[in-house]
């Protein structure tokens, strides 16, 4: 069966991690995996750019990591479970890190979750939202 990755592109505010992203983001995601090791976490937090120099990532990927720009990392082939190793190293929760990809701050985002989460109405399709 012919794969159809295009079908996911109409979902607003969503980056689906495909086998193509996995290929593009391989070294970025493997760098993230290295942070499972406590010693590596210490080295990364002490000097991020020096730690990243050992990895065969693109300059854009490295800059996105240094900027902690998670949306940019997703766009460059990162997957959120891999990227979680970066914010876990810094002691941030998923709620804190995930909120940075939205238009809310961490407190507002947390409050939205406690109130029942983001309502799906209006969030099904870019076309419906006039974004495509």
């Amino acid at each position, binding site marked *: 069966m012919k794969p159809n990755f295009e079908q996911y592109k109409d*979902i607003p505010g969503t980056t689906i*991690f495909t086998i193509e992203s996995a290929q593009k983001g391989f070294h970025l995601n493997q760098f993230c995996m290295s942070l499972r090791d406590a010693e590596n976490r210490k080295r990364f937090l002490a000097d991020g750019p020096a730690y990243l120099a050992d990895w065969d990532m693109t300059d854009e990927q490295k800059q996105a990591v240094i900027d902690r720009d998670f949306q940019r990392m997703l766009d460059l082939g990162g*997957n959120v479970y891999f990227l*979680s190793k970066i914010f876990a190293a810094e002691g941030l929760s998923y709620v804190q890190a995930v909120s940075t990809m939205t238009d809310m701050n961490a407190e507002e*985002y947390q409050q939205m979750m406690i109130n029942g989460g983001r309502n799906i109405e209006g969030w099904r399709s870019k076309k419906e939202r006039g974004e495509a």
Partner: protein
Amino acid sequence: MAKIVAGIATSHVPAVGHAVDMGKTQDEYWKPMFDGYEFSKQWAKDNPADVAIIVYNDHASYFGMDIMPTFAIGIADSYAICDEGYGPRPIPAVEGAPELATHVAASLITDDFDMTVLNLLEVDHGLTVPMSLMYGTPDKWPTKVIPLPVNVVMNPQPSGERCLALGKAIKRAVEQFDGDLKVEIWGTGGMSHQIQGARAGLINLPWDIQFMDDLINQPEVLQYKPHLEYMIEAGSEGVELIMWLIMRGALGDQVNEVYRFNHVPASNTSVGHLILTPKED
């Protein structure tokens, strides 16, 4: 013969494991969710199983992107607890069930499911959080475990049809084992949640409840739900719910609903939980 005696479905939110480990289960934020599992902890004590086959996904904890098996099965004596970036959870190691696991793995492969065989595996919150929810904080887990990791992280994930069929094959494999074992099948992950992008925080409780109803009553229809619908309606990470279909497939045509619980939110997630038992003919 060995027999599948029950199916457990539950979300596997990492923050839930953290709450257990830090003794926060009675905090105002967490208490309503943990209260929903009190029935299940008692039920687990009253209905002990010898082995639990736990269908879950690894979250970039043990598997990197160097190797990404679609379906895998652990056949080891025991499984260590993975360091997911915060240090390993302070919980007992998970004891394996190598005799049943090798039988099931061999049976599935012979049945045309191309399982990746794992003699070495560290397990993450996807497997251990459900155990904490069902068993609390014992010094030793009360049941042996066969981990069955599924790729739900990288698209394409296996289809719903394939997941339901895998569950049916697991049932056949268990029933052909020469040994008198009570076996449970657990499907973990979900329900609606999205932890990335501008749409993060999506929750769709009506969809989740309909999914539970369909899983119980018409899995043969539910299996055809396309991944696109999971991703739109239940969030990019909601596609984990295909793992519940594997659990359901292993229970046979008709099931009894022993228990059901929903709670929003745990961290970014809509929590759903079911206990099902096969209906005898």
